[in-house]
């Protein structure tokens, strides 16, 4: 199929009111979800997922992508107005956004956050369109040994960027891998940790695990500490962002967008490191260096460009290789699976219309985000005023219905509750849940490709190093391990 035919096929899928509406609804849900501290973009995507089941595949996925993009921007609203990031990606936005709000310039900070977010989002979407197809055509020649090496590399990165402790992140990933072994063996069909229960033979339901891990712990945390309340909401102020502000920050926005694209395209890094790196680069290069941290609009622009630059780029490994770029795209994999789609290089051959439909939808999403974001900035106060002690019971009920709807199975609701307690324990023990979930998804792929490679070679491990592609990923894995170990040791020495 030629490029023109592919674009036309994509346009035929998304050139209708339903697709446009799905995207817009997704962005609204995302902005509202991201703007409520305690919900976060991740939880918003997880909670929205079951509502996409009755939809057309393309519309459902567009809705979730809208939630993702809206959620990342939405997180900046409470970061600026109440010094509480709605989503971890917005942590860097607090540094200059909240001081601006305290100086009565919240509207200006939020306006810049929106403009920078939309610009970075657009750049990120273009990067996705240019690179995903190229990477996928390259990945078509991958066999099980190459995929094994790639997934191993992805896991290494995930474990290495898992918050404050590498060891705790790695432990989390191992727990995820262990949990993924539950069910029938992939080659022999024998039982593994099923205890004779037919409900466990297919393994644990992925959506029950993810909702249990990301939504229920917030409910339990509310039960543990019901009076943890939000801070004071700042007024928007009369000053608004101007084109001159945007022009002055443009260099930082573009730099931040590219940092986001680069880090986002590497599986596992996510948007928070991209935002901080973009912020620190902007501060290093800015003539207003001294004003950073005291309410510098360029700081807000750089942070938001960094975290939104990731949003499209994380879809590059997802669509091209079938490997999630971050935890949100790991959840979005669920939507692909529910609709019978398997992200990866073959999707560029078998479902090219959906791929191009997604590309077109994503380009549109930057424009819709600009409109919805502008309205959300003005309408934040009612969202901030939703009592959390009403919100969390709503989340609980949403979780119950959503998880049941996946397989019409009450057992999955039980799995979700158990995983909720596991997630709460992990929260209290400072074990990051993201490596757990990503390892849970990648675990079966890792094992399956490993065993297929072993079957191909008659058990000889030499096949795992059979050509330049495997060497490339093994080299990356070794470099990643060395860099992570050195970084951890340096951090340990610095901390005494």
């Amino acid at each position, binding site marked *: 199929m030629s490029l023109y035919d592919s674009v036309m096929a994509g346009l035929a899928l998304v050139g209708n009111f339903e697709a446009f509406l799905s995207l817009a609804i997704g962005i609204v849900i995302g902005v509202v979800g991201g703007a409520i501290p305690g919900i976060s973009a991740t939880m918003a995507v997880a909670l929205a997922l079951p509502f996409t089941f009755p939809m057309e595949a393309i519309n459902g996925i567009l809705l979730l992508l809208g939630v993702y993009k809206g959620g990342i921007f939405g997180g900046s609203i409470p970061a600026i107005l109440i010094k509480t990031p709605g989503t971890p990606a917005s942590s860097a936005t607090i540094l200059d956004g909240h001081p601006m709000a305290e100086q009565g310039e919240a509207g200006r900070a939020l306006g810049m956050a929106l403009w920078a977010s939309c610009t970075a989002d657009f750049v990120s979407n273009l990067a996705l369109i240019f690179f995903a197809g190229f990477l996928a055509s390259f990945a078509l020649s991958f066999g099980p040994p190459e995929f094994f090496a790639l997934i191993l590399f992805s896991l290494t990165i995930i474990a290495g960027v898992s918050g404050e402790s590498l060891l705790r992140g790695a432990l989390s990933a191992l727990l995820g891998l*262990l949990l993924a072994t539950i069910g029938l063996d992939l080659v022999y069909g024998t039982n593994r940790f099923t205890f004779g229960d037919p409900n466990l033979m297919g393994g644990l339901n992925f959506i029950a695990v993810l909702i249990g891990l990301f939504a229920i712990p917030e409910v339990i945390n509310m039960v543990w500490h019901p009076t943890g309340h939000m801070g004071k909401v700042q007024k928007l102020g009369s000053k608004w962002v101007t084109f001159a502000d945007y022009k002055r920050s443009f260099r930082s926005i573009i730099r931040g967008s590219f940092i986001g694209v680069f880090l986002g395209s590497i599986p596992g890094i996510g948007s928070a490191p991209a935002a901080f790196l973009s912020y620190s680069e902007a501060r290093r290069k800015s003539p207003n260096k001294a004003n950073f941290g005291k309410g510098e609009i360029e700081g807000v622009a750089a942070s938001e460009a960094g975290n939104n630059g990731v949003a499209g780029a994380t879809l590059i490994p997802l669509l091209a290789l079938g490997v999630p770029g971050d935890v949100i795209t790991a959840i979005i994999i669920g939507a692909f699976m529910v609709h019978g789609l398997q992200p990866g290089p073959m999707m560029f051959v078998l479902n090219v219309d959906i791929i191009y439909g997604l590309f077109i939808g994503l380009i549109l999403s930057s424009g819709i985000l600009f409109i919805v974001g502008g309205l959300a900035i003005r309408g934040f106060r009612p969202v901030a005023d939703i009592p959390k002690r009403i919100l969390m019971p709503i989340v609980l009920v949403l979780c119950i*219905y959503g998880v049941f709807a996946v397989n019409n199975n009450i057992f999955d609701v039980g799995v979700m509750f158990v995983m909720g307690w596991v997630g709460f324990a992990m929260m209290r023990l400072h074990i990051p849940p993201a490596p757990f979930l990503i390892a849970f998804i990648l675990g079966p792929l890792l094992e399956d490709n490993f065993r297929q490679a072993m079957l191909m070679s008659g058990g000889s491990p030499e096949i795992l190093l059979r050509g330049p592609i495997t060497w490339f990923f093994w080299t990356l894995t070794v470099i990643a391990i060395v860099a992570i170990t050195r970084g951890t040791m340096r951090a340990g020495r610095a901390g005494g």
Partner: protein
Amino acid sequence: MNHRALQMRLGIGAILAAVFLMIYAIPNWVSSPSNVRNIVLSPLFWPYILGALTGLMGLGLVLSGWRAAAGEPVNEATGDPRAGALRLVAFAVLTAVTFRVMPQLGMVWTSMLAFLALAFLVRTRHPAAAVICAVVVPLILYAFFAHVASVAIPQGELVRLP
């Protein structure tokens, strides 16, 4: 609990879990055909590798905890930990009861009761809004999933909805 204690406890927990996996859980709960010629193709191979890595990670955590300074407490203190713990127990009971009674009572009615129980467990300041939401939210979700998404929401044995 400070950073050091956290690392030590997690490390010891991981080592114990690894020992349990390798000595009891994997041999008893993972079955393998007797004719597997190559160990790497056995269904037991992967769980054993993961068990061993868990043990190694536990060892790493213990060593890092042993070398680390005690530091500040890792979790911020809550006003009344005893009351918090009691609420957690109540929530555990609530989740267990929700799971058990759902087939008999139906998802809608169970969700309504769970909503109310949770709202009052966290001492909501808006009881009227909680009651209204407890009734409306499950009904809206029922309407969506049952009539739009065609999901067979459990109706229970008492009151059935259209």
